[in-house]
């Protein structure tokens, strides 16, 4: 009676075509990432550099001076995204179990729980994007990739994975 009255929605999975891309991506996101080193952000340059009175200080002393014409801007300083905490890792493992049985809705729900705990963890956004890819929601997969990318500045590995997710999603 109850369920009859309520609209039930089925979210269908997507065929094997996507799976190739997935295998590629599933290697990207390690189930546990406990071995990463903590964040190392660039020191703020020249904030309190002692200078003789009247000296003119370059705004960005530790960088080559600004390009006069279209030279590549210097790469952002290297850093490593912080590792996911124990709670997020537990949920990531749960999500992986759901993904293994093809239950992508539940898998995504676990990642969303983790994101409420660590909303700035690029690994989680990557994982959610990967699930969307498996479901065939390429637009969301791409958006999640872009979100992960925006949180991965300076981390070469995560940047590459985010770009790969975006590229895979865009190809579809």
């Amino acid at each position, binding site marked *: *009676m*109850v*369920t009859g*009255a*309520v*609209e039930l*929605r089925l979210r269908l999975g997507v065929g094997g075509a996507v799976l190739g891309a997935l295998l590629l991506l599933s290697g990207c996101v390690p189930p546990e990432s406990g071995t990463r080193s903590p964040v190392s*952000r*660039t020191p*703020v*340059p*020249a*904030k309190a*550099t*002692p*200078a003789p*009175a*009247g*000296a*003119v*200080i*370059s*705004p*960005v002393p530790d*960088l080559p*001076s*600004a390009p*006069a*014409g279209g030279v590549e*801007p210097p790469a*952002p*300083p290297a*850093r490593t995204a912080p590792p996911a*905490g*124990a*709670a997020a*890792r*537990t*949920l990531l493992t*749960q999500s992986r179990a759901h993904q293994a049985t093809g239950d992508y*809705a*539940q898998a*995504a*729900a676990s990642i*969303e*729980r983790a*994101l*409420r*705990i660590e*909303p*700035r963890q690029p690994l989680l956004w990557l994982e959610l994007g990967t699930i969307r890819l498996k479901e065939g929601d390429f637009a*969301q997969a791409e*958006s999640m990739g*872009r*979100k992960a990318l*925006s*949180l991965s*500045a*300076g981390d070469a590995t995560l*940047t590459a994975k985010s770009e790969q997710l975006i590229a895979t999603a865009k190809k579809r």
Partner: protein
Amino acid sequence: MAAGTLLVALVGYVALLDRQIVRQFEGRRWDLPAQVYARPLEIYAGLRLSADDLQRELAALGYSSSRAAKTQGTFSRAPQRVGLVTRPFQFWDGAEPSRQATIRFDGGTVVDLADSRGKELPLLRLDPPLIGNIFTTHGEDRIVLGPDNVPTLLLEGLKVVEDRDFDRHGGVSLRAIARALWANVRAGGIEQGGSTLTQQLVRSYFLTNSRTLSRKLREALMSVLLELHFDKPDILNAYVNEIYLGQSGDRAIHGFGLASQFYFGRPLAELQSQDIALLIAVVRGPSYYDPRRHPDRARERRNMVLGLMAEFGVITPAEAGSAQRRDLGVRGTARNFASYNPSFMDLVRRELQADYQEEDLQTAGLRIMTTLDPRIQALAELRLTEGLETLERGLRKKNASPLDGAIIVTGTQTPDVVAIVGGRNARLKGFNRALDARRPIGSLVKPVVYLAGFESGRYTAATVIEDAPLTVKLDTGKTWQPQNYDRQYRGPVPAVRALAESLNTPTVRLGMDVGPKRVAALFKGLGLETAPRPLPSLLLGSLELSPVEVAQVYNSLANGGFRAPLKAVRAVLDAEGKPVDRYPLKINRAADPAAVQELNASLTQVVERGTARGARNWLPPGLVVAGKTGTSDDLRDSWFAGFTNDHVVVVWVGADDNSPTGLTGASGALPVWARLVAGFGDAGYESTPAAGLQDVPFDFTTGMMAVAGCGDTVTLPLPVGTVLPPNPMCGSGFDNLDGFAERGIEWLRGLLN
């Protein structure tokens, strides 16, 4: 012949009644109002939560305090430690079993969690607080219990008090009637009903309390028929779920499951004998024995019930004696019930309307899982009420229209709406200002104007713009001469200062340069249903938005330029806890993330150096927040919208009749906002490193290069390669002239680029 006709008529009548009662019993679909739940509290190491916070949450959930928490729904408390046994709950992503755990705190932070054997727990999820039900306006509400979920003590107690022959009679009990008659004759009035539980059930089905003889006869006949068709346990279980046990406003409390929540705030399974006895006492007259309004009467009858239970061996006399000495233990108010958070429930209903029929919500027993954070919600209600009272006391015009206001709080990287206050009397249903009051937003527009500038690549936070009178030619052929709020002009200022001090003429200059069209389109990208009209006046806030629309735009900013539609409903489960629907997280890139980081860092200067400096009086020292003040013409609307690392908060203050309030964004909405945010315990806003940005120090006043010990240096993330003008005010002496000239040329080149 006549006798024959009579017999046929009688048989026909009985058959009719038989059909009626069987259909009623079998086909009885109890109307099950949807149950609406707040977010479940997830506990993990590092969570900002104090032992007091957790105790409040547990108290709201009806967990009882005990020395050693050993049974479900109990907790024990030490200064920096909470032990508890959680209740099981069926969530969308699976069943959460009951777990025994110990949580250790260090002040405002969770240190660790361990299970009963001392093993570390990564995560513990409590059952979510019930915040409301969606029921018909004249409707019945109940929580249906299966036979396994009804304590034997309740069933035995009911029989002893209401129907001692229940297991033997066939629907009516002559002995009971005789006993009742004798009692009534002795008392000289109606004291004791002779109705069996079956008769009471039948009476409840047909909702009549008429005592005419024909009704009584019909009721008795139906009871006998019911007993012929169904066995005793079925009838008893129907009784437990059907009977009327109280009233909360226009909401009728039916069944012992809901009554337990209504009176004690706990599930029936967790009640003690004195609590069960009180519920049995209430059966006889929910109004007459209302334990809230008539505690003495209710207590007397409860103790009588306990006495009977002991007399007939349901409990021991010792148990009865100790239970009789207990307090009623009823929750002080029915606060957690009915429309506890009408403003938030409004949003829940609106979201559900897209997918569900009103009837399903009122009858299908759906469980609605929402994003509400009860702690933030309660704090927001309190701060708005207090804040408006304080503001009114401070206003000189005593006969002005009363102030009202609205607050909406969301997450920052999520679209979760965690609190909504729709007006100063938050408990009253009515006009929901947070959702429905569309007011001019004034300078809340400016961040979007500057974002458009940053995205264009032609402006950075350090770009110097002229603050001086200007004339804008309009399409209509007329001209527009925007002025600053204080009618003062400061000459060349960097964009961040123009934004922080909410200067109008540099904003219009920048806005006209990138074009109002671009600003309007960006507004739509950030989450407005429709793009505003791209008129020059848009640049200074001739845009009417509701607080929830403002929250959507600022949520996209806090989210680093990603738009996620705000939501209050996470998932819907059916009455058995099976998943029905989930509203997954969806995001879309709405603006260049680097430009948004630059903007957000600039918005911290609104509070550090700009129009919202006053917030420092209330914010915890060192807490970095980003935000913007907004004031509409003639001081009619006072706004502040801003965010920490964890929450986006929008506050509006104004008068319902749209009369001037004498308040600016900084003097009206800002104090409410800052006092509220101070109570969150949030982490301060922290900018995310972005590709293409580099922290650069420069002079806040002029936008020139920073010189130590000279001027007011601010450090913001600017696009890599940004070239700043040299600072002649700080440079002196000929020894630096060469460098000065070099820098000057470099700056000119930068401008030409």
